[in-house]
């Protein structure tokens, strides 16, 4: 398995009025290429914070204290990663837009209420796939040029084609330059001699200074009348949006694009958000409880949709949820979190068949499985307050198998067998 994203020993604190909330206590996790990776736990266990830390979108008063987030997106050398916690915010933005997309629980709040659906989906297309959109526009233009014989129209259209061509060339230039800088950056990554460090710094500055649009394109986009050629791109985008919405199972997409978010149901809004996330062809889709607010039948639709997309469009999915049923249905590999600690990582089958960590065991036993007359087992006590978390293993006050060592020492992640690791003193080799 190739790694795609790896977080190492992430520690994130929230500085609140009552004190410092130690939300993440050294979280490590790996998302592999091509898998659906689940992050499960109860509320406040830090599953959302982990992902937000990995994306560097932790909101104030939160702060990432230490750790590493390594992305393995380099196409030339898959094994060499970059630590994004050390990169600039501008760099992060280019990653967030292009390689990783996120969808959240509240689809309604992710959409702007005063813009039409078509505009919002189209906007992300224009932002991330402008080149492709221009090509589409050129294609329709070509068809029209062939059809129509009126020379005046022809000239006008040819002129537009020329302008579109300019933009394409400009985008190509930008792409080659950025790729060049990036590959130089990868080369200097991790080197410690002063010369490389200086070069690395200079490259980072250059990368941010690089103009996305050349002078010519900026001019043609700003000049009145001439800039009307943009409408051809917009028309192409609209068609593309309708096509995408049809793919996502939105009924009557031609009508939906002109509607506003509040006119749609929760499930439909979540589809729109997914379509926006897909617009940039992400390598990794992060889904933070995308179905928790939806009804079961709608949840089934959305899960089915994500499963389909996993086959066709996205390589990996990082799925955050508190619902073990959803995990069982959609994930390949799962990490269970408790109070800012990772407890156990395993393939879904292993986790449900032979859970190892006492917390995982307790959690699985407390879920109603749908057998009549069963007696639910519970985990005594409540989730600890993370301002003053328990010492050692954070689960020890509620653990049925607690030992002396658990109170003082945080357990290491132990690899038990192929792909199944657990952080518990019970499994330490004597």
């Amino acid at each position: 398995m190739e790694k795609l994203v790896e977080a190492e020993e992430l520690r994130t604190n929230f500085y609140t009025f009552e004190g410092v909330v130690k939300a993440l206590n050294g979280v490590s996790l790996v998302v592999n290429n091509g898998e659906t990776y689940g992050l499960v736990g109860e509320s406040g266990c830090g599953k959302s914070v982990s992902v937000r830390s990995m994306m560097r979108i932790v909101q104030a008063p939160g702060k990432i204290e230490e750790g590493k987030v390594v992305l393995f997106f380099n196409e030339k050398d898959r094994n060499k990663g970059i630590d994004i916690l050390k990169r600039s915010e501008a760099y992060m933005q280019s990653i967030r837009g292009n390689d990783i997309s996120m969808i959240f629980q509240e689809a309604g709040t992710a959409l702007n209420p005063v813009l039409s659906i078509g505009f919002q989906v189209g906007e992300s297309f224009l932002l991330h796939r402008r080149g492709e959109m221009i090509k589409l526009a050129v294609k329709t233009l070509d068809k029209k040029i062939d059809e129509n014989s009126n020379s005046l129209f022809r000239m006008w259209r040819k002129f537009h084609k020329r302008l579109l061509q300019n933009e394409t060339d400009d985008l190509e230039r930008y792409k080659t330059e950025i790729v060049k800088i990036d590959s130089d950056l990868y080369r200097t990554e991790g080197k410690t001699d002063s010369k490389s460090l200086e070069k690395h710094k200079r490259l980072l500055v250059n990368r941010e200074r690089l103009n996305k649009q050349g002078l010519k394109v900026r001019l043609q986009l700003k000049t009145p009348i001439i800039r009307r050629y943009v409408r051809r791109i917009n028309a192409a985008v609209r068609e593309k949006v309708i096509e995408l919405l049809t793919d996502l199972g939105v009924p009557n997409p031609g009508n939906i694009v002109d509607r506003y978010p509040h006119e749609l149901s929760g499930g439909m809004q979540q589809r729109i958000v997914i379509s926006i996330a897909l617009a940039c062809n992400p390598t990794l889709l992060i889904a933070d409880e995308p179905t928790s607010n939806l009804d079961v039948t709608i949840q089934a639709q959305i899960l089915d949709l994500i499963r389909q997309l996993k086959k066709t469009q996205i390589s990996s999915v990082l799925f955050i949820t508190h619902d073990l049923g959803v995990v069982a249905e959609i994930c390949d590999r799962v990490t269970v979190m408790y109070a800012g600690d990772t407890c156990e990582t395993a393939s879904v089958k292993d986790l449900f068949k032979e859970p190892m960590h006492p917390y995982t065991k307790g959690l699985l036993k407390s879920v109603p499985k749908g057998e009549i007359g069963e007696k639910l087992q519970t985990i005594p006590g409540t989730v600890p307050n993370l301002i003053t978390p328990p010492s050692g293993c954070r689960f020890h006050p509620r653990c049925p198998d607690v030992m002396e060592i658990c109170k003082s020492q945080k357990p290491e992640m132990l690899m038990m067998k192929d792909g199944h690791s657990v952080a518990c003193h019970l499994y330490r080799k004597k």
Partner: protein
Amino acid sequence: MNSVNNENSTSAINVDYEQPVSQHPALTEAIFTVKRFIKNPLSIIGLTIILVFTLIAIFAPFLAPPENERDPYRIPHDGWTISPSPPSADHPFGTMEQQYDIFYGIIWGTRSAFKIGFSVVLINLIIGVILGSIAGYYGGLFDEIIMRITDMFYALPFLVVAMALVVALGRGLQSIIIVMIILGWPTYTRMIRGDILTIREKDYILAARASGTSDLKIIIRHILPNSVYSVLIVASMNIGATVLTAAALSFLGLGAETGYADWGQMVSMCRNWIVGPPDARLAYWYVVFIPGFVIALFVLGWNLLGDAARDVFDPKMRRK
């Protein structure tokens, strides 16, 4: 963190449940409130300003003994000389036109300011709470009638009503107070109604109804304690604003008669002395600057206090 499930570790304080409570929790909350208040330097400044003004108002008879016990608000004057005279041993802040003592005016004007601020805001608040509660809680026809009446009052132009009333009732602080009550209560009523509308939808109101609690008790015990704070904060800020408005009306000549200890009236009297003679433009600075500065300080004090109160009482700001 996660917003679905409210079992959020940041919202629940860490409590050792085995420990019996050593003091009444209301006291604990009060101590927390005071601590929260003290932490903010601006709130201390606001509080100090208001405290100083309060002391001045209380001890006015000692700070500036009135010449006429029966009418202490009348500023004493030394003769009839037109031009003001600068601060001296007899008149620490100088005198105004016709030798009215500025110091005396400021001291007794504090009482007028409190009188105006408190009476206007308090009466507005009472009207607002009663009408707003009825409109917000019962809704329907009550709501419709009360809200349309507030709309009508909103439509009245402030200055016209003020002038009409002054004509009808005669000059004086009373007229100003009445004008500001007539035109001020709709704001409070609307605000309280809005707050109650959001609180009314909470489940604990339904729970109280389901357990047979009477409407009056629901309003007093459940709705008002959870909604009135935001209005109280606005009210405390409005005390300053009310004094400012009153001063403006006095300045326009709608307020107290000449020689009455009221800051606005004092500024109004000094209208002609803002700019001095050509050779000394700032010769009479004290006549406008001192009352103006005191008004500004008074308003600032209440605004800081209101701001601090919001930080302390607003549940969203409280634990930040």
